[in-house]
């Protein structure tokens, strides 16, 4: 129910977007978001795009984790 899946906007027409995930496409309402364009990733929930996914933020989150690896490689045993 609270499941929302990340999908990519393919085309937009009349307040609805055709979105794709894996091999599937779906018609999603854009009523709850402003300024979406084809190529954007959004969260799809019960037929509505509810939020845009920010790729830069995603990369930043991943970078922080990857840095933990470098830290522990560099000075093992210390997490200060």
């Amino acid at each position: 129910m609270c499941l929302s899946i990340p999908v990519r906007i393919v085309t937009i027409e009349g307040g609805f977007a055709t979105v794709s995930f894996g091999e599937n496409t779906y018609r999603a309402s854009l009523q709850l978001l402003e300024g979406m364009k084809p190529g954007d990733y959004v969260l799809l929930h019960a037929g509505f795009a509810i939020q845009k996914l920010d790729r830069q933020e995603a990369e930043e989150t991943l970078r922080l984790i990857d840095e933990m690896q470098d830290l522990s490689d560099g000075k093992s045993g210390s997490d200060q």
Partner: protein
Amino acid sequence: MDISKEFRERGRVDILLRQIRQEATEKYIFMEVCGGHTTAIHSYGIPGLLPGSINLISGPGCPVCVTSESFLDHAIALSAMPGILVATFGDLLRVPGGGTSLEKEKAAGASIIVVYSINEALDLAAKNKDKMVVFLAIGFETTAPGTAAGVLDAGKRGLANFFILSAHKIMPPAMRAVVEGGTNVNGFICPGHVSAITGSGIYGFLPDDFGIGCVISGFEPVDILQSVLMLIRQVNRKDPGVEVQYTRAVRPEGNPKAMNIMKQVFKVSDQWWRGFGTIPGSGLQLKPEYEKSDAGKVFPAPPQRQPVESLCMCGSILRGTHTPADCPLFGTGCTPADPAGACMVSAEGACHAFHKYTMSL
């Protein structure tokens, strides 16, 4: 590039697990509030990966699990009335109540149609002008804006034969109820998709009033483990706050457009939650100007019946005081194929997730 895949990568899971093992110096009980997290945690086998000192328990964030029997009774009564089509999310179909369920009634010929979105229910109303279509509106802040948009759309499209029966709920009062109910939870994994709509401000009372930390988390294994690590650090530092791990979807202000539509159509009301009873200010009902679309007002509820006695412990599980393994019916008198309680029906229910991913090991 599929962003989600990056958050499932084994290497990153290992980095986080190593860090968690290093930093987990105490005992920790973290509650994942959202049913989507419960499913993700069990499907990725996360409890088995974490050190034994970290206990993850489920909370009241599975919409189907917390829905009342009287709501289901009302929906079933409507489905038996001539001229009414009931449109519902599939998850509600199998919830047992009073010896029946929407699924059993549907098999016996009641007019119940499964939809994935309120937009399909609106199209049903447009195609069946001689019928009245009632959409069963359940879910939290993630789902309620869509319902609100649907109600506005019904007006714009002149669909006077479209109604909703609302059991919509909002999350913060239930989290307060968990804490006030006396829990030993020392951190919340907060619902990511609720927060994508509301923003991160709604949880401030947890650290401020109760000294309990919160991390708003995504749904992939790397997200969940990073959130666990962030909570461990909050506890170790004795510095509880509200942090966002799921920054790719959750902005501090949430989704203002969705919030505005929700506030335009709904007003806050009291709501009944399984496990808690009535929680003040925890529900959403249509404002007076939209009452003509309110099935709860237009089609009165059937008389309350005596609740059926049951050994089901779903209520205590939703409050975080028990786990599915404590229930005498778990796995014997209650299975996903033949559920005795709501927590075994929904894929997001703790009993269902526990059964599906633990019993098959």
